[in-house]
């Protein structure tokens, strides 16, 4: 098993932490994983991507061409990366910012995550909602590992936000048709 | 002839650092509600009439976004802004 996930967005949208949460979940689940974030040289306002490769044995290439799953955080990301999806793959799009998308050969789940996050009271959990959708829809990882992963990734002083994040991830999971 | 100034902001280059707003002695400038392509709320001219053409704002702008003109004639039109649709 090898699952390649690619996420793209703009600095500040939580692309990095979504990637690192996925990686931790894989680790919790006893899988092998490799995760990398890349950003543009600007310190502020540039683009960000995360690549997470999950495997049940040794992770080979951390470099991906076409990917199994694509998480698109905004329109720039969608314009740039939509073509990366492997035929039969899964796209989770933050439709609040991507607008409507069309894909030929892959499953597309559009989640108005920014709006939903705002409704939950914190736009910051947009990424967690998308994560929930991805995890549930793709089925490679189990949602049950989310909380443990969160505890590792989140600095102690932010642990008070754990309930909100769990709510968000579940909300995301519920979006799977 | 009464002097009238026109402050022109390159709103696409503006990064909303706020220095011009802070240093304008006449409170001419303020943050726009809109975002530019880089996602910043750029500065806009809120009160053109009060502008004395002192250039403090332009002197402080790190992104060379501000140009200031002295008009030959009196002019009551709206302030000039640039870049944000």
């Amino acid at each position, binding site marked *: 098993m090898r699952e390649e996930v690619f996420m793209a967005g703009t600095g500040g949208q939580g692309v990095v932490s979504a990637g690192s949460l996925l990686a931790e979940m894989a680790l919790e689940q006893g899988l092998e994983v490799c995760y990398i974030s890349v950003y543009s040289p600007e310190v502020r306002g540039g683009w960000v991507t995360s690549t997470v490769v999950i495997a049940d044995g040794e992770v080979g290439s951390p470099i991906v061409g076409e990917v199994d799953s694509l998480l698109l955080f905004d329109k720039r990301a969608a314009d740039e990366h939509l073509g990366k999806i492997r035929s039969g793959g899964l796209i989770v799009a933050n439709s609040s910012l991507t607008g409507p998308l069309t894909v030929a050969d892959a499953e597309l789940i559009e989640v108005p995550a920014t709006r939903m996050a705002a409704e939950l009271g914190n736009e910051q959990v947009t990424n967690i909602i998308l994560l929930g959708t991805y995890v549930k829809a793709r089925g490679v990882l189990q949602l049950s590992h989310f909380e443990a992963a969160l505890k590792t990734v989140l600095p102690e002083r932010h642990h008070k936000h754990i309930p909100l994040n769990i709510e968000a991830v579940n909300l995301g999971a519920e979006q799977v048709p | 002839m009464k002097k009238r100034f026109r402050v022109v902001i390159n709103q696409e280059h503006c990064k909303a650092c706020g220095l011009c707003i802070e240093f304008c002695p006449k409170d001419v400038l303020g943050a726009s509600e809109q975002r530019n392509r880089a996602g910043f709320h750029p500065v806009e001219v809120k009160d053109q009439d009060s502008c004395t053409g002192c250039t403090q704002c332009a002197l402080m702008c790190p992104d060379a976004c501000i140009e200031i003109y002295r008009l030959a004639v009196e002019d009551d039109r709206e302030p000039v802004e*640039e870049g944000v649709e």
Partner: protein
Amino acid sequence: MPDAQDLADAEVVYRRPAALTEVQMRYCPGCTHGTAHRLVAEVLEELDLIDRTVIVVTVGCSVYADKYFNVDAVQAAHGRGPAVATGIKRSSPESIVFTYQGDGDLAAIGLSEVIHTAQRGESITVIFINNAVFGMTRGQMAPTTLVGQKTTTTPRGRDPQIAGMPMMVCELLASIAGVAYLARETMIDPKTVRNAKRSIKKAFQAQVDGAGFSLVELISTCPVWWYKRPLEAIAWIREEMLEQYPLQVFVEYEA
């Protein structure tokens, strides 16, 4: 530009200097690298030097300065700007050559080159941006970092027992015979901006006159790696940086 036509016959009070291109600068919001660029550009235009000037771009956040200045540009290895500038000046003496260097570039890795260039009295100009940190590489300690200042490599604040005291570049250069103009300025309010420009102009004038080496240190902001908002950064210069780095004209030049 809407209404541009309308401004055609208006008198220009202030406009973007011709020595800057139209390219948007990549600096972070409130970073006074941009201010420094603008001042240098104004001086080049006012002294009518645009067609003679070569900027030696060095490594730091200003590494893209070749995109912003409307003059010939040479990108130099980290710290080697003054040597590269000397090579240009010696083989093309009519050129006006300046380096634009950060405090990592000039005061850390490039200290030898700048001092030897000053010592030789090389007629070049150095614009030295002291922002007390390595900006481009994400906020490490610079030789100029203040005591107690937290950076990514002084997570507990700069400890002079380990890393020594901040380096005072102008004080170091002040004793050197080849220096024609030397000043420390900042850009934290309209007055200091005007002073900074005046010093930059004198520095270039010294070069035009072949008087020797000129350098202007500009105490500059790095809001991002000071973990501050732009206005806080300005305040921090006023309250902390200028304490360590008092503004002063160290070596005066009159044409």
